[in-house]
């Protein structure tokens, strides 16, 4: 009797907690991949994560924060830097990806080196050319700060910063970085209409691009070789660096195209500055190699008008509300208190 009673109470309780922490999946999107059960969202944890994201305390000499390379106004990429001072053995060779909709990613980094968003922050924190610190030093510094004692206490009911809690908080903030309010989304929700040019671009896109840049996330989460000539000097083998498999050579994670207007330069090494250069690559620049994706064997055939239309469509993926969302901005209300 009492057992059942307790079980029922328990169920009701967990139900309530679940509801409070529910993650807003935009209409018609697939379920997120991230396991929220292992890192339940809370306002306090997200705030802690946001403060950490913007705090150079994470770097050895306290000069670089995550937002040095992932700024909100450029969809969390490194504006105008072809290659951000890269990570690990790809020092100075890779372009910082735009950060958004990360809850739907199965792996992180251009080569998928990182298996879980929680663990992402370890890479920049530990790399000598980046933040040059390590998680132990970071945790030690955080534990000396009054502000963080309070923030950790509010978030985890424990004022002591640990590696686990630090990583989980930063992940929580990143999970909230969702872009789903572009013109494209409004058109899909019947709140807006494409111009005839955008509509034509959309049709061409669906035919030629969406097998990899799949709606609604504009990535299928897979790795592909889209025919970029490899840089002889860097010879970045992409996915094969992780799997050591020949068939993965020169494959990179298919990037999202949301907010593509703002996340230039393009590709893993930032080789293209403009979208028309990207389209010229797909029509005239595809380089054949053993791992080139089957769909691109013959390049993509587009007239110059069609290219203009595709670009018009790509611009409908810009989400101004996202770029200027105060929820993602520098946490002046908190840092100010210090």
């Amino acid at each position, binding site marked *: 009797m009492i057992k059942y009673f307790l079980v029922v109470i328990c169920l009701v309780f967990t139900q309530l907690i679940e509801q409070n922490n529910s993650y807003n999946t935009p209409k018609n999107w697939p379920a997120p991949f991230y396991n929220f059960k292992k890192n339940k969202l809370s306002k306090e944890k997200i705030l802690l994560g946001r403060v950490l994201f913007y705090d150079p305390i994470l770097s050895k000499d306290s000069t670089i924060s995550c937002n040095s390379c992932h700024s909100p106004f450029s969809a969390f990429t490194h504006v105008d830097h072809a290659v951000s001072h890269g990570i690990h053995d790809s020092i100075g060779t890779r372009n910082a990806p735009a950060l958004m909709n990360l809850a739907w990613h199965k792996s992180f980094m251009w080569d998928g080196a990182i298996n879980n968003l929680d663990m992402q922050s370890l*890479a920049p924190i530990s790399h000598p050319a980046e933040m040059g610190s390590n998680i132990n030093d970071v945790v030690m510094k955080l534990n000396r700060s009054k502000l963080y004692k309070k923030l950790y206490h509010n978030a985890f009911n424990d004022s002591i910063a640990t590696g686990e809690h630090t990583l989980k908080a930063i992940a929580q903030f990143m999970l909230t970085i969702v872009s789903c309010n572009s013109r494209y989304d409004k058109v899909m929700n019947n709140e807006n209409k494409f111009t005839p040019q955008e509509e034509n671009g959309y049709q061409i896109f669906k035919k030629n691009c969406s097998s990899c840049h799949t709606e609604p996330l504009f990535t299928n989460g897979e790795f592909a070789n889209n025919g970029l000539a490899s840089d002889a000097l860097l010879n970045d083998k992409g996915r094969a660096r992780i799997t050591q498999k020949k068939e993965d050579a020169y494959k990179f994670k298919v990037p999202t195209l949301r907010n593509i207007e703002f996340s230039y330069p393009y590709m893993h090494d930032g080789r293209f500055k403009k979208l028309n250069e990207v389209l010229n690559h797909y029509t005239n620049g595809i380089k054949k190699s053993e791992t080139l994706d089957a769909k691109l064997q013959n390049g993509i055939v587009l007239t110059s008008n069609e290219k203009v239309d595709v670009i018009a469509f790509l611009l409908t993926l810009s989400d101004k509300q996202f770029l200027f969302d105060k929820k993602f901005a520098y946490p002046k209300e908190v840092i100010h208190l210090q």
Partner: protein
Amino acid sequence: MKNTLKLPFILSLIVFLFNGFNNIYGQSDCLNIQINASFKDKPLMLNDTVYAFKNNHKIRFETLKFYLSSVTLIERALPVWKEEESFHLIDFEERDSNALCLEIPDGLTFDAIQFNLGIDSLTNVSGALGGDLDPTKGMYWTWQNGYINFKLEGTSNLCNNPKNEFQFHLGGYTAPWSNVQQIKLNVANTSAFNISFNLLQFVNELDLENLNHIMSPSDSAVDYAKLAAKCFSIK
């Protein structure tokens, strides 16, 4: 009406008290197993001790750390008890970490102990974890994900590099380089036994002239993990 309410209350009180006692006394029931490392049958000394091995070559150790996980007790080839949340970082720099305290029920009989050297693949993809698995423990790769299952560092004149160093960071959780090793040891006297890692046996098998760094998942990392797994015994 009142009585029907009272009965469950009293019952639950009894259950509660019983559980409470169980917890208090349960602790003294903990089966204590020391994890030792030896070199030439003596306890391993880190840092200052230079050992002779392989015909008077020299070797010195700075770090020996590894994970033991999924500790299971076995009787007649069947598991009879499994530790929950079973992850232990064994670190020979921090002495007191090297004891397992298994809270087994009274009177449990078993004839073997089984554990993993390293961390299983599911745990490797489970995001940030705490306790012995906290990434501040220095047993997590940063440039690529995954736990380091076994870490041995030191110097030897056999190592052909400027500081004569060797560093073996063994790990990897995906095929073909899944690194975790299952170890089963028969136990004769189940009330008091220790587990010993024979480091001399391990380094005698190494080819320090040609391979003195393993820092990522690879075939050699798997071979070395298999080697390490053979060096455990009951003492």
